[in-house]
Structure formats: structure tokens, C-alpha cells
């Protein structure tokens, strides 16, 4: 009987240890947040590439496609088709905003398809250079491939911007009147998005810091006057609008923000804004620029006064 109790005691201890370790093994759920849409997707997609590693062999071409073009919509459309759909949406919105004629629409579609063709060709060329042989899935250097595809990802994001055929054609085909109309509509849209970004920023700060109605109003007013709208080569989602305002808020001089808050709120806010720099990197990567031409830009701003975040050294 004693022997039996002794064995029971040992088993009990083992069971307790097992129980503790099992419970401890469950990690808390990873916290995600208001991360720039395009950045978030790219981050997720980059880490799932190569589902085609059948029998331990990497399909490098498929992995490159996933890294460069992403996975969204990949089940129904080829990479080229997805870019063409993006172009069509862009032209449809433009046609509406600038009252384009059918001829102007066709010219823009033609130019955009040219950009797409050139880009797809670049990707194919990259694949040919990179795909010398099929690789063993366990020895394949994913980080290296990820690094090498980054310039292509950046080109995809800004496919119809800056020096693209699309952008040049757009500048050429629009009459002065259409150009003015289009500019006005884009500016109004950017201002609405900016107001949305300000509202979202105030909402987030309100829950984080317990702001009163008066504080929210003063913060909203300050952000509306002291921050600028942003524009990107791609669609600006509300998440991006938030990031645009939040990053600018982190760069505001501390003396502009501090008077709005209680000392305990200000300490909490300062700590929070220190993390805003990670959002700035995402905005820069996605080609988001601040409206207005003059003044600081994301990723390159001089610091004359102590910013609210204390991030003087971190900004370039």
C-alpha cells in the first residue's frame, strides 16, 4: 500500500509538472495593429511564399511571383490580370473625376498596359537570372530571395506613378480644364481622407489616454492645422490615413502637444509616439508623400525642435 501511495505521489508530481508546462506553452495571441495596408499584406505574403515546395523542392518561379505580386486574388487571376484590373479601376475613377472621353480612356489604358508589360518582363527576366535550378526546400535562402525581390515589389507599388508611361500620358492627354478639375477633386479627396485620419487618431488617443471632450476637440483642431494630407501612388485606405496623421503627430514639437494633456497622459503619450517611426517606414516604402510640396516629408525631415516622440535621432 505504501509503495502504491509513493508511486501515486510521483505520478501526481509528474502530472502537475506536465500541466504547468502545457499551460505555459500556450503563447498569448500576437498583437497586430494599425499597420499600413500594403505593408501588412506584403509582410504576410512574403512569409508564405513557396507553397509549391512539393517533395522538398522549391518552385522558385512561383515563389518569386508570390513575393512580387502578392497572393490576394491569385486564385482567380494571373499576376498580369491582377495588375490590369488595378489599371482598369484606376482609369474608371479617373474617367469619372476628370470627365475623360473614350479616346482619352483608351490612351491611358494603352499606356498602363505598356507599364504592366514592361514590369512583367522585368520579373520574368529576374526569374530567368535567379532560377538556375530547383532548390532543396531546407537549404533555400528565403531571406536572400526576399531581399532581392524588394526593388520589384517597390516598382509594383508605384507602377503607374512618377516616370511611368501612364503618368506621362495622363499629363499629356488631359486638357487644362480637365487637369484643374482632376486636381481639385484629388485635393478634396485627400482632405477628406486627412480629416478621417485625424478623427481616427483622436479616437485612438481617446481610448488610450482617457481624453475628455474638450481635449479631443483641441487635439482634433491641432492635428487639422498642424498636419498635412498625404497622397500615394495607390489607393489610400483609412488605415493609411491614420498612419499619415499619427506619424506627423509624433514629429510635432513637444511644446505644441504637451499643454493639451494631464502630466500622466503626456507621459503615456510620449511612450506611445516613440513607436510611430515604424509606421513612417511603411509610408515611405509605399510612396506616400505629404501634400503641399514644401515642408518636411516622410523619411527626410530636419529636426529643429524636440519632437513629441523624442525621436530626433531616428529621423533621417
Amino acid at each position, binding site marked *: 500500500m505504501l509503495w*502504491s501511495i509513493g508511486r*501515486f505521489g510521483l*505520478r*501526481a508530481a509528474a*502530472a*502537475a*509538472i*506536465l*500541466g*504547468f508546462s*502545457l*499551460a*505555459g506553452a*500556450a503563447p498569448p495571441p500576437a*498583437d*497586430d*495593429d*494599425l499597420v499600413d*495596408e500594403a505593408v*501588412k499584406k506584403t509582410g504576410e505574403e512574403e512569409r508564405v511564399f513557396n507553397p509549391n515546395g512539393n517533395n522538398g523542392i522549391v518552385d522558385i518561379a512561383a515563389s518569386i511571383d508570390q513575393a512580387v505580386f502578392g497572393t490576394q486574388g491569385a486564385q482567380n487571376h494571373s499576376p498580369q490580370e491582377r495588375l490590369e484590373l488595378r489599371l482598369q*479601376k484606376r482609369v*474608371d*475613377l479617373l474617367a*469619372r*473625376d476628370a470627365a475623360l472621353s473614350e479616346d482619352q480612356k483608351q490612351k491611358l489604358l494603352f499606356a498602363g498596359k505598356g507599364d504592366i508589360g514592361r514590369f512583367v518582363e522585368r520579373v520574368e527576366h529576374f526569374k530567368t537570372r535567379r532560377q538556375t535550378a530547383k532548390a532543396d526546400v531546407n537549404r533555400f535562402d528565403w531571406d536572400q530571395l526576399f531581399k532581392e525581390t524588394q526593388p520589384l515589389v517597390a516598382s509594383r507599388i508605384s507602377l503607374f506613378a512618377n516616370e511611368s508611361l501612364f503618368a506621362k500620358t495622363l499629363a499629356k492627354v488631359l486638357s487644362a480644364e480637365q487637369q484643374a478639375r482632376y486636381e481639385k*477633386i484629388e485635393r*478634396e*479627396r485627400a482632405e*477628406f*481622407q486627412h*480629416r*478621417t485620419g485625424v*478623427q*481616427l487618431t*483622436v*479616437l*485612438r*488617443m*481617446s*481610448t*488610450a*489616454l*482617457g*481624453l*475628455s*471632450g474638450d*481635449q*479631443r476637440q483641441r487635439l482634433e483642431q491641432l492635428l487639422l492645422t498642424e498636419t498635412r494630407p498625404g497622397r500615394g501612388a495607390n*489607393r489610400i*485606405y*483609412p*488605415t493609411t*490615413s*491614420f498612419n499619415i496623421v*499619427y506619424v506627423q503627430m509624433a514629429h510635432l514639437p513637444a511644446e505644441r502637444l504637451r499643454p493639451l494633456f*494631464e502630466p*500622466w*497622459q503626456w*507621459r*503615456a503619450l510620449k511612450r506611445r509616439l516613440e513607436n510611430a517611426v515604424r509606421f513612417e517606414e511603411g509610408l515611405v516604402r509605399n510612396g506616400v508623400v505629404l501634400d503641399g510640396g514644401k515642408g518636411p516629408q516622410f523619411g527626410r525631415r530636419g529636426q529643429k525642435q524636440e519632437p513629441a516622440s523624442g525621436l530626433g535621432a531616428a529621423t533621417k
Partner: protein
Amino acid sequence: MSRSFFLVRWGLLLVLAATAVGLRAQPPRADALGPLRAQLQVELQFVRKICAPSQPQMQAITKDLEKCLADAAKRTGPSSCDLLPPALADSVANHLSKSDAARYRAEVLKRDAQEREACVYTFVALVDPDLGLSDHQRKALVAALLPVWKPVWSQMIEMDVRWATRRVPPIPDDFILPLLDADQAQAWKRLPKNLEIHQVFDAQRIGAIGTPNPLPDDE
């Protein structure tokens, strides 16, 4: 005899192991509130700013809020987007003086109004590129939606901002279509809608940036 002794012994072992799992996995109070604990911090910070309650008041408020949120987590009390926030406000106001309670409730109304406005703006900004709205239409939509906006739609919008669900609230066509032209109306009908209209309050909607620090910051 030996068979029943064997069964009892293994039964005890299982109970012991399960208890160990329970103790390890549940630090005091954390599990009863689950993800709703973030909302406890939101409410405590808010009342701290608005009324600066005494320490005994704060303790009583905390206790009541925890009970309310624990009941919501277990679904034995109000847990929906419509019912939980008013229940939380009652849990706070019950421990304040009459004048403080009135001030607190007035601030809650202002806070709700700001959340509603932010979410309406976000909704319009979200659908704008698909519908190709004019500036006049955007402003008209904001004005039309503010008075009819539902609390659950705010949660849908906040979750969409956080997780990019790409589903918009199922706002009745009656509120939207009169402000759109025929092409825009078709585009609105094609947009994927979030049809889960009976949602429990989800504290994750505020994200990490909107979540207060868990400990008092009095240093």
C-alpha cells in the same frame, strides 16, 4: 477492490493535472475578463480624467466594472455593442456624487458622438474609391449617416481598419442610394457587406495603439 482503487487513483491524478493547468493559465482575475480587460483600462482612465475619483471610489468602480465585464465575457450579462457600454457607464456613475455622475454621463455622450463621427468618416473614406464620390456626396453621406448610425457598425468599421476585413456595414440602401447615381448604386450593391449584425462587444477593436497601459501611470 483493486480496480476501483486504480480508477480513483487515476481520477485524482487527472484532477491534479487539470488544477495545475488552471492555476498556471489563469493569473488572478485575468481570465474572468479575457480580452475585455483592455476595456476596463479604457473606462478607468476615462473616469480618472473626468472626475478624479478618490481611491476608495476607484476601488469600488474597478470592482463593479470587473464584474460587468466578467459577466459580459461569460455572456451572463449585457455583452452586445448596444448594451455593454451603457452598463459600463452605470457601473462607474453609481459610485460618483450626483454632480460628478452628471458630468461623467455628459462626457460619455460626447465620447460616443466622437466615436460615431470618426467611424462615419472612415466608412465614407473606405467606400469612396469604389464608388467614386464627389466631395459633395461624401459630405452628404456623412450628414445622412450620423443620425442613424448604429453602435455595431462602429465596431465593424474599427475591426475593418484593424484587420482589413474589407467588409462594410450593411447600411440599408434607403440611407445610401438616394445620394448616389446609377453607376455608384450598382457599385454599392456589389461591395461585400458584413452581415453579422448581432455582435458581442469586442475590446480588440481599439488595437494596441488605442489600448491604455495596464498599470496606473502616477510616477
